[in-house]
């Protein structure tokens, strides 16, 4: 279970998160939505300790992330797969090595036979051929990079998966493929997922619950049905994809 209580974060004079409370239950997929620049990715990076809050508590499996020692944080990170917005693949090594680095067990990482089998298995899970192993990231398309990024995140069999804008920059067909993949992984691996997105359609297709971040706070956190029925102006504006002359414009 992931719990965020009163998260406050500012960069210089700009307050990005202003007392965010957010909970993710075991086994569910939560879509964290909001217009660009509202701090969704910043919030996501708090969960695995890539960014530390100025105030507030982040609790993952009863462990308070900002109080963990370095070694404890490393161990926690091995249970959390993170899919970066632009893949963040290591561009100097091939697909095999990229995914192999996701193996959290050092024995498995050093065992080349196991690593090769596991990398092939992860590639199949994200609908890529094992033949792609020898390619460099520069030889992959945008959609393939995203899928390799997901394969790397699941290689260590994490309990949680955090997706940062997994469909941004993709055409609608490839975006649907990634959305289906997120849903498939949730069912196949039983992982708990948090997906940052501004793609309303994708979020409604994939998520069990949704959260809307605006003005540094969670405006609404609920089921897709609760979102549809909400009369909150920011929720309505976001669902109608009309951010002009709405509270978002301010």
């Amino acid at each position: 279970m992931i719990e965020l209580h009163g998260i406050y974060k500012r960069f210089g004079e700009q307050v990005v998160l202003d007392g965010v409370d957010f909970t993710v239950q075991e086994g569910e997929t939560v879509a964290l939505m909001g217009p660009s620049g509202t701090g969704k990715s910043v919030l996501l990076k708090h969960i695995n300790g890539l960014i530390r809050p100025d105030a507030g508590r982040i609790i993952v499996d009863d462990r308070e992330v900002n109080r963990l020692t370095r070694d404890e944080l490393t161990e926690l990170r091995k249970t959390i797969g993170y899919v970066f917005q632009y893949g963040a693949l290591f561009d100097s090594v091939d697909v095999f090595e990229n995914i192999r680095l996701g193996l959290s067990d050092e024995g498995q990482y050093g065992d080349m036979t196991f690593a090769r089998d596991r990398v092939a298995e992860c590639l199949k899970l994200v609908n890529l051929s094992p033949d792609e192993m020898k390619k460099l990231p520069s030889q992959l398309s945008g959609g393939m990079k995203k899928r390799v990024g997901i394969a790397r995140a699941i290689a260590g069999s994490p309990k949680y998966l955090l997706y940062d804008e997994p469909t941004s920059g993709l055409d609608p067909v490839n975006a649907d493929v990634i959305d289906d993949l997120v849903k498939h992984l949730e069912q196949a691996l039983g992982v708990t997922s948090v997906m940052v997105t501004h793609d309303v359609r994708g979020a409604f297709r994939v998520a069990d619950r949704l959260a809307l971040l605006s003005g540094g706070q969670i405006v609404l956190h609920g089921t897709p049905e609760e979102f549809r029925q909400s009369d909150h102006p920011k929720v309505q504006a976001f669902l109608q994809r009309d951010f002009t002359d709405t509270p978002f414009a301010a």
Partner: protein
Amino acid sequence: MTAIALRLPGFLGRLILGGLAHVGRLSLLVAELFRGLAEWRIWVPRTFTESANIGAGSLFIVLLIAGFAGAVTAFQAGYQWQTSLPVYVLGTLIVSTIVLELGPVLIGLVLAGRIGARYAAELGTMRVTEQIDALESLGRSPASHLIIPRVLAALIMLPVLTIFADFMAVLAGWWSVKQVLPVTDEDFAYGAQYFWRPFDGYYSLIKAFFFGGAIGLISCYMGFNTQQGAEGVGKSTTTAVVASSVMILILNTLLAKILLN
């Protein structure tokens, strides 16, 4: 004038705080390096790869610069030559100048540009494209994967390249001085050996070792702490080269004072 006087304390304060922040972050990086040494299975193979890359990649430019530097040293020695001195002194002069000063310092400054810019740009690009965040999110140490191999490669390869540079510069100086003055091979060899002390060679390598450490550490630090996209990478790269070069000059002075006096 009054406005400038009022702003001065604030400016100085920010400057001092900025400097202290750099010292603090650099200290944390060094502490991370020592922690990362335990993961030798990760950094040992990467150190070999990095060493081979910067060694083989830098050898041509090192030999070229050393050759020209040796030749110019010989021509200038010939220009300032007094006929009252025995000619074998030329061998002493050229070898000492190259081994004690020109070889390590010139190669250090050249490699501050070549290796320093490369390290800062590589790590800076990795930072702004979230590759370093990705490594951390996988529970892996950027120190053992990225920084230790680069710093160790610079520490190892600077002395190795300096040995090549010293030999090349001496050979070029030897050949060149024969073109401008009536010096025989025997005279040059006698002069080179007459005042030669093994410590001179060690001193050259000690300097190169320190210069390598400065280049590796400063460049990795700058690249690792890059911010703000492509502009940030450019800024880190420039700062890495300038800071490494300045540190080489400072270390050169300190080492001369400590080891030669």
